């Protein structure tokens, strides 16, 4: 073949290469997820405010747990290929989510062990959420009359959030108290100062918002395995956050069903070089998507027989 023809033929051949439609769709979804992750107005503002003991940390941590989740672009060579964007899209399409969240303390050597809390979480649509504390294993006794952030007296307490309206209520079935939460307190990660913010509307639960924040590009892909009876693939990210008194290391692992492309289990650990920061581990498991949910469970009106308090 003449020289000129050879080069022309090869260039022509390159110009005819076209990826299949599914591949392009997957690439665009992954790119879209990356763009959304970098949007400044979609980022969480102050998760650094979460302190170990404040009770509000429970709710904030739940959000962080979920954030983790999903992402990722491509799976390991021996695993089926799932782009993180596919997981995000699958989760975005669900009408309801239920899971059990277990949060436990990871004591350093010589530290007392903290309580382990379990709660059932139900999310209806994008912005209605119900969290019910189902068990608390007490922590070791603390000196000086200090108390852990949770104790068994909290079992049964329900928090219902209507994020779209900015309405947050708690129900205590034991005392028959109904409380409307008007403001949240949080503690500065660096100087310990407590700040108070008014309850305000939000477009969606952190469960969904968090999906956009997972650093998919840097995530490690984990080999396929069986988790809770599902064949899953894993995505793991490790992020360090430097603070005045130390460095926090967040490790997030997401196990995603390779058929449904929905998360099966989400694991998060936070370790810190700051001795004042508690180290925690959270697991979101028993995940159920699209099960019918009784809308009355999301009511923010006081039930009959309850005393209203603010």
């Amino acid at each position, binding site marked *: 073949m003449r020289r000129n023809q050879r080069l022309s033929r090869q260039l022509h051949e390159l110009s005819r290469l076209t*990826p299949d439609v599914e591949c392009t769709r997957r690439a665009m979804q992954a790119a879209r997820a990356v763009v959304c992750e970098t*949007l400044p107005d979609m980022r969480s503002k102050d998760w650094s405010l979460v302190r170990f003991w404040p009770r509000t940390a429970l709710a904030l941590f739940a959000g962080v747990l979920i954030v983790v989740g999903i992402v990722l672009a491509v799976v390991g060579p021996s695993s089926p290929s799932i782009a993180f964007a596919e997981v995000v899209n699958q989760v975005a399409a669900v009408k309801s989510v239920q899971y059990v969240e277990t949060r436990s303390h990871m004591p350093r050597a010589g530290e007392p062990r903290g309580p382990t809390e379990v709660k059932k979480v139900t999310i209806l649509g994008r912005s209605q959420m119900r969290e019910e504390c189902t068990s608390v294993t007490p922590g070791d006794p603390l000196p000086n009359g200090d108390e852990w952030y949770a104790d068994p007296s909290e079992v049964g307490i329900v928090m219902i959030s209507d994020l779209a309206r900015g309405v947050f209520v708690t129900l205590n079935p034991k005392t028959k108290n109904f409380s409307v939460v008007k403001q949240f307190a949080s503690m500065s990660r660096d100087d310990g100062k407590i700040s108070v913010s008014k309850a305000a509307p939000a477009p969606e639960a952190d469960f969904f918002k968090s999906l956009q924040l997972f650093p998919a590009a840097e995530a490690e892909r984990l080999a396929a395995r069986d988790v809770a009876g599902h064949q899953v693939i894993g995505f793991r990210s490790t992020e360090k956050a430097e603070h005045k008194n130390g460095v926090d290391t967040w490790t997030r692992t997401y196990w995603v069903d390779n058929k449904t492309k929905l998360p099966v289990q989400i694991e998060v650990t936070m370790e810190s070089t700051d001795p004042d920061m508690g180290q925690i581990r959270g697991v979101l498991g028993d995940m159920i998507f699209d099960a019918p949910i009784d809308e009355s469970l999301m009511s923010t009106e006081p039930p009959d027989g309850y005393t209203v308090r603010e």
Partner: protein
Amino acid sequence: MNEAANHVLSLLAEEGPRLHTLLVRITLREDVAEDLMQDLFLKLSRRHALSRAVDPVGYAVRAATRLAFDWRRSEQRRRDTMEIQSEPASNHGPKPCQLEQREDLQAVLDAIEQLSTVCRNIVVMRYLEGRPYEEISATVGKTTHQTRALCYKSIVRLRAMTNATRSQGSEALK
């Protein structure tokens, strides 16, 4: 969602398939192209460069071309290192696809990589994408006449380089 983000997402919706196809044609790997798409839009999002670009589409095409050839260079370095170390092929790495094993296409792409940035962009847009000279000249900031001339010179260089490569290969076989 802010204006910059909307800008990037609009570009993705309108030009995403073109950019992805371009990445596949340069890398010859669909999996790599998918990763590079993410890198590309991450860069476009983070630097707000797209908002400042006079020709956002052209800017994105140039950025995609640069990313893809950067990947080719790093991949070549990785292969060279592996050869030096004489390590057995890993069972865990991605399996090369049929396209990737096309040495003739790889040689052409390697030769394109040797061109100057402007010439490379012109060749890529003209021969890998089939774009008209008017559009290419606007993207690279040259007149149409200059673009045609640079394109011609680039092809002459490519022929010389690919023929040289072929001759070296023949010598090695003797």
